[in-house]
């Protein structure tokens, strides 16, 4: 058996560390790695691609972590990702919702899925996060480490099964 199958969670860090705050997704995984977070498999992704629909079939829970241009009150936002056939034209990348949709329709697999968006501010060709984005990253990590997210997952899961 693939060792990934034994892990329940997979966390996708999406972004590009060479584009300032677009590196938030990868930086999130870097911090989890540094803290020796062993509960999940990590995938560093530049973009989500069609084969990720197959990859998530090995997991019960999927978390997509990405930089966001949205104005977020806490600097981050964690919410349930729902399957959708949303798509974009002329692009090679897929949305998290579409990955779930494809997994459901191609492989009959419906994992629990969440999106953690972290607000970023600068997107130029440069390494390193901006100060405010780093602060948002730390808040998101704190949320994650306090296991608040696990509680959130349980609550959402309970809600969806009522």
């Amino acid at each position, binding site marked *: 058996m693939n060792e990934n199958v034994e892990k329940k969670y997979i966390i996708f860090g999406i972004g590009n560390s060479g584009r300032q705050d677009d590196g938030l997704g990868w930086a999130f995984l870097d911090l989890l790695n540094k803290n020796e977070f062993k509960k999940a498999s990590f995938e560093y992704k530049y973009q989500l691609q069609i084969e990720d629909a197959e990859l998530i079939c090995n997991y019960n829970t999927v978390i997509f972590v990405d930089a966001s241009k949205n104005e977020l009150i806490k600097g981050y936002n964690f919410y349930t990702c729902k399957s959708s056939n949303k798509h*974009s034209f002329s692009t*090679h*990348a897929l949305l998290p919702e579409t990955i779930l*949709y494809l997994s459901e329709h191609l492989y009959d697999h419906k994992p629990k899925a969440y999106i953690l968006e972290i607000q970023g501010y600068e997107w130029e060709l440069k390494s390193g996060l901006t100060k405010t984005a780093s602060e948002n990253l730390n808040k998101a990590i704190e949320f994650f480490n306090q296991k608040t997210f696990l509680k959130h997952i349980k609550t959402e899961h309970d809600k969806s099964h009522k």
Partner: protein
Amino acid sequence: MKKLVIDPVTRVEGHGKVTIHLDENNKVKDSFFHIVEFRGFERFIQGHPYWEAPVLVQRLCGICPVSHHLAAAKAIDQIVGINPEDLSLPAQKIRKLLHFGQVFQSHALHFFYLASPDLLFGVNADPAKRNVAEVAIEHLDLAKKGILMRKFGQEIIKTIAGKRIHGISAVPGGVHKKITLQDRDYFLNSKDIPSIDAMINWSKEIIEFLKGYHDLNKKWLNEFAKYPSGHLGLVNKENGFLELYDGNLRALDADGEVILNDIPSDDYIQYFNEGVEKWSYLKFPYLKDLGKDKGWNRVGPLARLNVCNGIETPFAEEERIIFKLSTNGKINNKTMYSHWARLIEMLYCAEMMKKLLNDEDILSNDLVRKGERRSEGIGIIEAPRGTLIHHYEVDNRDRITRCNLIVSTTHNNEPMNQAVKWVANNVISGEPKITEGMLNQVEVAIRAYDPCLSCATHALGQMPLHVTLIDHNGEHIDERKR
């Protein structure tokens, strides 16, 4: 005058928008495909040690980082005194295997995700229908094969480069690791993933499907976005065959006459110039002898099949001959034939991967060569979307002092503009109303080139498609978002 704007063609591959200028009678006055993102990568890389280039340039693109990695590596080889033919055979073959894996997965992605919805459902289909999610529902087997083919190429990349994106394989003068027997068997024995033989068979099946599609839709495919152009690509130095990793540059004009006769890739600077336009950040390369207006060329699968004398693998060569017969052996200027050409190349890559996976050289430890240090290096390869040029100069402290990149989509800048003009003149002009189907056709014309307008940030919260209609007074009279 009305101005129709399709903006952006998404930020993932960079900002791009289409403007079609209409007069009071809805006749097309002019049209432009704008690239409005300025990457500044050439400046960014200045001052970095030369050996960092193959790693840094991968940030240019999340779709074809391997192509940038290898083009930069070929240039850096020259800086350490190694010409392409001086690399050890194992290093050459491992790099080629990596490259074929990259082109294979990129072509699979384009066909299954971007092209097949247009072809299966028709360009006038509702956008809600014309997407990969619907392909997954209505053509389950095709969608699953597409995923596995893409995955196969990605696994080749991961095996050789360590990661699917931004991995490291090439080092100055060679590659940093060999392929193990276990690695090789993974691709040959069908235990964990479908084998390379399955990839060859599926590639052949998909070509059959597309040929059937051509039979049914010949008129449209023959006419849509057809326009005369030059065609540019690398060809094998010995026999003029299709070449993706290292060869001479050849260009033909719209009638098939040779306009660039197998020049060594290191001499490209003598033959090419790059023009600029105030409405686009993307440059317009052209052949100096012919000038800016006549010297531009298409690059990519269609151009490569036009310029080559043949293909060295048997199945792909068989398909190339059928492809050539479709135009009675003449040069092909039909944009929509790019999809067919792309699939023939996919088959070629699969056959080449099989050949290389069965080659004992890839298991060898003879990986790196050294030569006499130089101050300049040029690396040219055929990336999935076409000819890719990396050119570096370094100082005596090993720092990059100058960098010039001509990426495939830059070559295709003018061809994409021509394709948009064709749609504007033949589909939109004179119509009283701009329909969804018309907008789709603009996209279909651009999409045939599989443009990668330079990968940028993507970040959540982006609107992928934004359409604005502006009248002759500059007023926004319509706006659509997808």
